[in-house]
């Protein structure tokens, strides 16, 4: 059974030539006859399906559309064309901990965040201890989050997200959060998820971790799918392309360098 179905999805951003932040600027731009926008396709004709229990990694250079794709799957963004169907409870791990309110305590934030991700109060109360224990923040849960370190916020954010019992987990660059110890622990948790037969969709530049976690990978470049198959093969080819690109950059630099 497929849990994610993406069909002919295009996503266009309108990138303003100049950031228009006020009415005055908008009126001036209009008077000068500037249309003000540069149209820019972040994703072009993306089609793929994901079966339940699959773990899929997405690789690609910066600006290739990886995060846009995750945003679309999380329903935070809307596709310009095409359709996306995701079945079951989706848990997006995008920008961990950013939804926390600095003035509220850790406990209050856990409840707010969990409700946002679709868990009701009673379920959250039941899982609360496990969440706190996983984040290793027992002592500080009644202090405002503004007193936490960055690492603590990220740990709590990750812990809330992975305790939601999602069907589909969307992960954006969070394989390397926290210290060595927590990285190890969070990666272990993701492997557990996989064993439980959950669907995982992960964007990362950490290719080794991707290869361990995912059996399938999608390589994006400038909004198009370059390759979508076995992760070993995709990652090996992607590595070669990155190396080639870096070498050509180095060559160009050497060529342009002044002699001597």
């Amino acid at each position, binding site marked *: 059974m497929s849990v994610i179905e993406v069909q002919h999805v295009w996503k266009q951003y309108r990138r303003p030539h100049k950031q228009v*932040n006020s009415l*005055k600027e908008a009126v001036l731009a209009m008077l000068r006859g500037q249309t003000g926008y540069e149209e820019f396709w972040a994703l072009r004709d993306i089609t793929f399906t994901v079966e339940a229990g699959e773990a899929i990694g997405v690789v690609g250079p910066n600006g290739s559309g990886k995060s846009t794709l995750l945003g679309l799957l999380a329903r*935070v963004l809307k596709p310009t064309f095409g359709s996306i169907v995701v079945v079951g409870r*989706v848990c*997006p791990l995008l920008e961990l901990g950013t*939804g926390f309110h600095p*003035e509220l305590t850790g406990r209050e934030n856990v409840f*707010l965040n969990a*409700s946002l991700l679709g868990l009701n109060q009673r379920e959250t109360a039941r899982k609360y201890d496990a969440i706190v224990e996983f984040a290793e923040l027992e002592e500080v849960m009644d202090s405002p989050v503004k007193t936490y370190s960055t690492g603590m916020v990220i740990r709590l954010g990750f812990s809330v997200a992975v305790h939601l019992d999602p069907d589909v987990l969307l992960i954006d660059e969070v394989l390397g959060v926290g210290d060595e110890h927590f990285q190890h622990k969070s990666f272990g948790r993701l492997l557990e998820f996989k064993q439980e037969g959950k669907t995982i969709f992960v964007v990362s530049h950490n290719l080794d971790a991707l290869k361990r976690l995912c059996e399938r990978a999608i390589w994006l470049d400038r909004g198009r799918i370059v390759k979508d198959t076995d992760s070993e093969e995709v990652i090996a080819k992607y590595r070669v392309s990155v190396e080639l690109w870096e070498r050509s950059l180095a060559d160009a630099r050497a060529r342009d360098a002044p002699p001597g």
Partner: protein
Amino acid sequence: MSELAEVWRYREVMGNLVRRNLKVRYKNSVLGFLWSLLNPLMQIGVWWFLFKIILGNEEPNFMATLICGFIPWFFFSQTVLDSTGCVTQEMALVKKAYFPRTILPLASLLSNLIHLGFAFAVLIALFAIWRVDINVHYWLVIPSTLLITVFAYGLSAMVAAWSVFYADVKFVVGNLLGLWFFLTPVVYSLGGVLDGQVKVTNWLTGLMAHWLPVIKKIYLLDPVAMGIVGYRSALLYGGANPIMKPEDLARQVELQAQYPFAHYVLGAAMISVAVSVIGHLIFRRMSDLFAERG
């Protein structure tokens, strides 16, 4: 309908947001939640000082008139003002997860409704202490509040959506509310306005004098003005027609015949609902772009 069902499904998020709004607003202040009372009370004090002491307003019972007008006004203006930040301050949530965006202005509206309820409870307690006769006509407060609430939701939704794209909205709204304050019968009573004349001194007053009958009608169709008038009718006049001009009974009867009150209530209610629907539609259309433009 499915939209409503979805908001209902996310009611816990809304509850959490409301609780958070209430907690955070007066965080780090010594008096905390008491400010939700002190703030309007102090403003009432300022207006009372200005109109009663400095300008020597002769109206009997001016303080009561002022309080009954100010409580609903404060609810309305605070709701619209808060809406300028209700999406922009939650960008972190908007970019992180899907939820029906409508719950953001709704949560801000609900928080302010709770503040209103709190202020109202204190008012009733004061009435009890002052031995003011508390009677059945007080129920009129409920439709009056509803009138303002529905209207405020529409405006809030519009303002919230525009605020995401233009930072100017906040300042424009603040100043417009400052003007609106005087265009609703908060610091004066309705009878004086309907009886009022404009002395022509320049082109603007000339224009106003010419259009005065129309201006008065539009004035009466303002849901906020109608809400305030409803509060006064309920709390001060025992449910009587609120077009009051106590010192001149004959003139009052004339005014009431000239401005059939029921028509204006109906008109204001229709405007309320229309603004609410339009505001909601604007918000919904723009909310697709919140995550990528904010």
